Every structure is written in C-alpha cells, then in structure tokens.
C-alpha cells in the first residue's frame, strides 16, 4: 500500500497553518497520522494537501489554567497517559489514553486528532464527555469553544467545520471525583467494543453527582443521562446498580457487528458500567 501524491506543509504557527490550509481547498490537518494516513492508504481519503501540525507551538503542552487543565491538541496519547497534572486532575483521561492502541500508536496519535476523527469506538471521546471538557477551536473566522456534549454528531462526524482546527481541550479539575475508564477491546482492532468512562462524586453513602460516558456502542460516544439521573442523590445499593446497568444505553441506537451484536453490546455496556461503579465506590 502506498500513498498518492499530495502537497505537504509544516507551519510553525497557528496563523500560518490556517493560511496554508485556506490556500488549498480540501487540505487536511495532519496530526499523528494514525487515522488519516490509513484512510489515505486505503484510498478512502485523497486530500490534495496535508498541513502538518507537529511544528505548531500553540498546540502543545499540558497546563493548569485557573480551575481547569488545558491540554494542547497535539498532546500525544503517551504523554497524556503519563502526565502528572493529568493524573492528578483528570485521571480518567490518563486511563483512557493509556488504553489506546499500542505503544507506537500512543506515541504518534494525539488528542486533537482522536477527537476530530471521532471514531465511534475511540477511547478519548468518552473521556472528554465524562469530564465535561470544552474543545477550543480556531479558524480563519476566529476562535470559539465547543462543549464536548455538542461535539460528537455521528460516525466520523463532529461539530467542526472543514477549516476548523482544534487548539486545545480544556478539562475542569475534578480532584474530588472518583474516576475510571474501563474498556473491552475488540480482539482484532483493539478499539472499544464497549468503553465506559465514569466520574463520580461520593458523599457519605450517597452519589452526589455522576457522569457516565459510553463509547463503542452507538454511532458516537454519548453520555448515559438516564443512568446519571438514577444515581444522583441516591444511596448506592445493588438494586440501584442493576437498574443503572439496565438503562446505560437506553435511547441509543445500539449497533452490532460480527464480533458483538447490539444485544450483547447493550449487555456489556450495562455490565461494565456496573463493574466500574462498584470499583469506584469501594475505592479506599
């Protein structure tokens, strides 16, 4: 497999990047290349130009910013998985990043690329959803912020315009929350058959608040709102967990494939949610 010819740009700044992309209709951003290059090799994408974001300083780095964590779009999964600030303020993001693909993929792939690509079975979309993150975007028209909950629209479909570039992901710090990401990988692809990201605030024996995001199950990652409502303010019991498990995918058009049918996926989503919540609840 090989690629056809294309123009290649490697800008040093965001402005330059936006200019270069605007100059060639159909140009695509290149981040880690872990999703885009396979598409091109399989002749499913044929962009006339790639604008490589690797040299754009504005897109790198993880910083504390007020009450939030600001993660540059070009942050690689491996860095996310190991960064002390991420571990402290958003451990579920680190956990999700650590379960992406294999070491090679984690050292190339980026959070910006993963969110922009919006694979329905990718890990990071569930993480940013559960964390109520905000996606910072720039375009020739200026900057704007998109809440994670409004970002994912369908398989490989997001709220981004073609000339939008993700600059950073801003994650509210939730040190007091218990967080976890649990993934059941597909044996061939390694992507999530079911991935559950959960962030729970416990007060005594009650759930003060809960955020649960699900990936791998439907056309895009989603928040399990019904399950969250059931949990909020309640005393944690087995009966509650069973009820929560039964509604994790409710309202979703659950999909199936050769490896896991829709029924089985729904079952796994409930089971996994339950297991994640049990584990979080019993922690310490």
């Amino acid at each position, binding site marked *: 497999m*090989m690629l056809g010819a294309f123009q290649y740009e490697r800008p040093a700044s965001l402005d330059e990047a936006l200019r270069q992309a605007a100059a060639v209709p159909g140009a695509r951003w290149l981040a880690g290349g872990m999703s885009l290059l396979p598409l091109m090799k*399989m002749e499913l994408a044929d962009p006339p130009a790639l604008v490589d974001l690797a040299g754009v300083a504005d897109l790198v780095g993880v910083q504390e910013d007020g009450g939030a964590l600001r993660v540059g779009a070009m942050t690689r999964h491996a860095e996310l998985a190991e960064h002390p600030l991420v571990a402290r303020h958003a451990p579920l993001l680190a956990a999700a990043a650590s379960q992406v693909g294999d070491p090679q993929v984690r050292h190339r792939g980026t959070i910006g690329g993963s969110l922009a690509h919006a694979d329905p079975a990718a890990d990071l979309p569930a993480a940013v959803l559960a964390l109520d993150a905000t996606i910072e975007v720039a375009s020739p028209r200026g900057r704007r912020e998109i809440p994670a909950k409004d970002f994912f629209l369908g398989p490989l479909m997001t709220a981004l315009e073609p000339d939008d570039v993700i600059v950073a992901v801003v994650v509210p710090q939730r040190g007091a929350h218990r967080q976890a990401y649990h993934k059941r990988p597909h*044996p*061939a*692809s390694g992507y999530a058959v079911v991935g559950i990201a959960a962030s729970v605030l416990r007060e005594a024996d009650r759930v003060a608040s809960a955020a649960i995001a699900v990936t791998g199950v439907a056309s895009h990652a989603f928040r399990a709102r019904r399950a969250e409502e059931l949990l909020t303010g309640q005393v944690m019991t087995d009966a509650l967990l069973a009820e929560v498990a039964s509604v994790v995918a409710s309202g979703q058009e659950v999909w199936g494939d*050769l490896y896991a049918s829709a029924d*089985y996926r729904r079952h796994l989503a409930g089971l996994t949610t339950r297991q994640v919540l049990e584990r979080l609840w019993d922690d310490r």
Partner: protein
Amino acid sequence: MSTDGGAAHAAPLMGQSVPRREDARLLTGHGHYTADVNRPGQLYAVMLRSPHAHARLRAVRTDAARQVPGVAAIYTGAQLAGRIAPIPTAWIPPGSELALTDHPALADTTVRYVGDGVAMVVAESLAAARQARALIDVDYEPLGAVTSVAEAMDPDAPRVHEGVAGNVALHWRAGSDPAAVERALQDAEVRVRETIRQQRLIPNPMEPRAAVAEFDAADEALTLWVTSQNPHIHRLLVAGVLGLAEHRVRIIAQDVGGGFGSKIACYPDEVLVAFAARDLGRPVKWVEDRREHFTATTHGRDHVDEVVLAGRRDGTLTALAVRTQANLGAYLSTAAPGVPTILFGLIANGPYDIPVAATEVYGVYTHTTPVDAYRGAGRPEATFLIERLVDRFAHEIGMDPVEVRRKNLVRADRFPYTNAFGITYDSGRYEEALDRALEHLDVGAFRREQADAARQGRLVGLGVSTYVEMCGLGPSEVAGAVGFQGGLWEHALVRVLPTGKVMVMTGISPHGQGEETTFAQVVADRLGCAMQDIEVLHGDTQLVSMGWGTYGSRSTAVGGGALSVALDRVVDKARKIAAHVLEADVADVALEAGRFAVRGVPDRAVSFADVAQKAHLAWSLPEGVEPGLEAEASYNPSNFTYPFGTHLAVVEVDPDTGETTLQRYLAVDDCGPRINPMIVDGQVRGGIVQGIGQALWEGAAYDAQGQLLTGSLMDYALPKARWLPPIETDFTETPAPHNPLGVKGVGETGTIAATPTIVNAVMDALGSLGIHHLDMPLTPERVWRAIQDARAAAPLGAAGAGEGGGMRS
C-alpha cells in the same frame, strides 16, 4: 555473531539447543525476501481484483487507464485467453470424481470470488500502476453467489462453474465398508452424534506473497523470485503454464517469511508477472498488500462435519462415521483436493483403535477464495472431530474423558498399527505421553478446585486431547496411489570443499523452521566439523538439483533423511581415502570427532579436512576412487511418520461476559529424537498458538453476497501474546523406525492438538450448564448466549451448581 560452535567438537550437537544461525540475518533486517529483490529497469505490477463474488464481465475498458503516464501494459483475461494455460490443480485423488474446471490466470468471462483477478497493470512506478488501475472501467453483471456448502449443494443454487451439478467438486470415501459401518453403529450400546463446523481461517504469514520475474529473451530463460514453500514444484508448474522449457526456468525463494501452507500453491499472480516480464522484455515486480492477502491468498479449513461415534458402556470405541462437506472455494487450488480427503479422511480415528470407521467427503465449489493447505492441512480437522466426539462419548457414559482415551489408545505393542483406513502408524507410546502430561497436572486436584469454583459460581474447565498425525510426506508410491501429481521423496547433496568446508544443498525450502541450523547440526556431528564450516543452501532451483519443498512436516523427516544418506556416502568415500592414507584396511578405519583413526591405534589418524584436501588433489587415491568429495542422495521414505502426544489446558469462562481466559496450557509431544530442542519447542509453541487462535478468535466470515466481512486485521483477530498463558512443554521420544534420523516432524503438531484441547476445556467448563458443543471461534458472545439459553432452559437454581463438568475422577 556465531555462537554455534567453534572448532571440531567431540560432544554431539544433535540434541543441543544451538541458537538459530538464520536469526542474525533475519532479525537485523538482512534477510533476502522476494520484496527485497529489485532488478535494473524493473516495472511494477498491480492486480485489479473483482469486488463481486460472482459476475459476468460485460466489458473491461482500459483506454483511460492506458493514458496514465508510465503505464507499460494492461492485461485482461480476454487478452490472455489462450496465451497462458489454466492454473493447474496438482492433486487428483482417485475415485473422487474430481470435477476439474478451468482456472484462468485472469478471469475471462466470469469472476467467481471477491479477489478474483480481472486485470493486471504494469507501469514504471507503483503509483502509476495504482492510478491506472483506478481508471479501469469494468462493466460487471452481478450474479447470484453461494458462500456456504449448504447453499452451494442446493440443486437450484447458482453454479460456480458451468456443468458442475450441485457445485460438487469431488466426492470421496474411505475406510470400512459402508454396510459394516451402518451395522456397527446400529449394534452399538452408545452412539454420540454431532454436527461440527470448522470455520475458515486466513493464514496471514508475516510476509505477504510477492513475485519478481526477469526474462532473458536471448536464452528464452525465466528467473522468478517468488514466495514459495516449494521452488521445484513452482518450476514445474510455472514452466507448464507458460509453455517454457523446465530447464530454462529458475525459481528463487531465498528467505520466505512464513507460509503455513499458503505458499505451496502456484497462483495466477506469479504466472502473470512472469508472462509480463517476457512480453515486455523488462523485469516485473509484484508485492501483495495485506488487504489483498485476505482475499487473494488461499484460505484454510472450512468444513461442516457430521460425526457419529459409537461404543460400549465400558468405554470401548467400536465405530466411527464421518460425513464431511468441505468448502473448496471458487477454484481447485494446487493441493486443495487432497486436503479434505487424503490428509483428513485416512486418519479420522486419531490415535484410537476403532475397528470400524469410514469417511465420506463432498468437496464443494463456492464463490469464495480458494481453500488449500493451512498448517496441519486436514489433520487438524480430523483431530478436532475425534477429540470432540470422544469427550461427548465420555460424557454420555459418565466416564472421565482421560480414561476413555486411555482405554482406546493404540497400545505400544500394536505397532506398526494399521487403522481402518489402511494406513500404518509407524511407532508410538501414546499412553506414555498421556501419563507424562498427567504427571504435570493432577486431574484429581483439578476436579476438586473445579467443584470449589463451581460453588462460587465460577466456570473452570480442563481440556484434554490425545492426538496422532500423519506427516513426513511421504512415500512417493503412496503419493502416486493417492493422486498427488508429484513425488514426495527428497534430495540432498553434500559437497566437501578442498579446505574441508561443507556445502549442503537441500530440496526442502525452509521458511521459518530453522533447518539451516538443524541440518548443520546433523552434518557437524556426522563429519565432525564445526558448525561455522557448514553452509546449508536451499530455495534456488539452479543451486539445488531437485526437491519437493517444505510442508506436511516433511523437511527434517524426509529432507533430513536424504541428508543422512548423502552423509553416509561422503563418509564412505572419505573412509576409503583415509584408509589409503593410513595404509590400513577400510574396515579398520573409523571416523570419530573429525578424525579417521585406525581402530585400536588412535594416533594413526588423519583429519577429515586432510582427507578432503587429498580427495581434491587426487595425487594419490585408492583404486577406483574418483577425485573430489561429494555425494548426493534421493531419499524416498517407506512410510509417513506419526508424531503424537497429549495436550492439556485449563480455562476459566466468565459467565457474565462469556469470555474465556486461558490459565494453563501443557503440551507433551513426541516427534522422535529432537535435533534442536529449542527449535522443536518453538515449532510446538507457535503451532499451539495458531491452534488456540482457531478455537477462540480467528474465523473468516462472508455475507450472503460473498463479501468477506473479515477482510483486514481490524476485523480478523490473530492471537496476541498477552492473551496467552505460559505454555509448558515436555517431550517423550519414540523414534520413527524407518527414518534414518528417527525423526518424525513437528511443524504442525501444535496446531493439530491445540484447537480441540481448548474447545474441550471450554466445554468442560460449561458442561455443568448442559452445554456440550459450540461452534468455533468461541467468542465471548457465542459463549454468553449459550449460557443465557442454558440458564433459561434449566429449572431455577439448577444451572451452574453441581458437579463441575462432565468429568469425574
């Protein structure tokens, strides 16, 4: 780099785990694979493959594609008709009513599977070739497709080939008289019956296929570098298909990155590339890509089997009947007809003494990728059936599966043992291997743990498989009798140079099995020279006189046999020269540790290297002895070899997800003496992992239209190291009495034994729920569903508790 022995040595190297000498080159990127071959002025070929499983080609328009700069030629089936002979089938089992059909190198009027070749583009660059391919405009008229044997055999089903009724490619029977089988089954106290599907597998060696062809017009000579397990067979077939003289065709397959059977066949691709090189007068290179491999390279297995096993309540097996429908795909690949017949049907009784047994096989054409040999080829399928049925039988009569096996294993004093299909097992101590395995795993203790686990709602299981396989293919007379269109003997040439260095030319074609090392060990011991003074050469028909290649675990058994005989001849001649030098009687001179010495007078000696020099100088040779020191041998084995063993596995099934976790895997194998225990161990482990792959993860699937749903490594799950338990291996050693080295072959045993071992273990874990058979692969969902169904069917509270599995001991 060389860790493999310095000067002439006294201690035998056979039996030592000498590190593989090929690894330094292979692991540092210095291998010479076909894709590494680049010839001056070479062109690049790509294939346009059918996206339809079955369609008529109304038109293949190449005008626009030809306009792409750099395109040298575009070939279509219509253009090639009559210029390239059909791709041959080289195994025609007698009595199989084989419905041979034409397999054109490129489809001329009809495409018959997704991946069938429609056109070949040859261009100055790969990019140009691909660009042009995208511009070929094919007008397909899609037709109805059949992908399963059940559909294909329906009288109203679409036909893969005109004139082949019911799509039946072959119908073959073996074993006891059908009436006798019927009677034995009727009369039996106990019968168990099962329909078993053995799913289609996709080989996926690390290296995909490739071919580079160069044609010398002046000499009418073709050189073809090709990923081949059997260069001489390729020479024969490629010459035949292209109408070239065999002596003007040179096949080179130097390093080959695995094959698992998928590089035995002669494919359209290498023939097309060779044709284009001749037609265009320039070298042409083609390299398969991974996605192409999924549809364009032969697949393996794909059976539906109806099996009945009968016996007495005391555990004695009395009769076996196997009725198989084997999916052969759209065309009969090179060895395909022999795989579900000869290599499967003659050993259906496994290691058990079953007096009455028969197999009946329908081989069926479907609109799918052709199916051919895949590691084990027929024998894994046979072993899976008998091993599953023995477990079912044990459950039925309430006896421990281990005991049923013990009771029926062919006893050590019965060898040579002729089974109900008329083949003769050479030697075996089956019970010893079983006992050895049980020394490592205390079944009684396991049963107690299993019962404890069951009380906690956990499902753990133990799987057993005792197996025998027929390998070391094989006696050429038998090859002829079973319709294999070739010999199965092997050739070796041992050439000792004036300095005493040794070159070995072998007709086998190792592609990962390590015979460069093992063969050198054999030579080093026999001649007493150092490993580094020995070169083992293979994979080039210009270099090696003749050979039939590497498959069927034959390389060390048959190729090693030839080597051994050739070495005897070299030593004989050298001994004569040594006796002459030492002025002693030939009978009094013996070779030991690299020196010929007069018996009883150890200091009257001459080194092997000195003898080699004298042989070449020829200044003074004994009467009638020719100058030089080399010998060749063609070894035609008198029988197959029959390795055997016992494998055990412990698994746990998560009832909530259906997921199987492997806890232990234990293999006791007997392949005769092990020349290099490390290499043998590696073969066993690799085979086991592949066998587990079939049990738990791998499986090709087609949709109703014949589209391959598992067409990439994103969908088709190959085993991953982190899913595997540590594999424990042990060995017993029963020599093959008829083999010069006593060796039996070990390339396929793991694959053959592991699949039923794992499935038996999972079924043991699920036995308490009343689940006794599930189709492979045992994916979590399939197992989970079975558990759900069993629980729904069982009276409340009954399922899950009670005795763990059907086994008690």
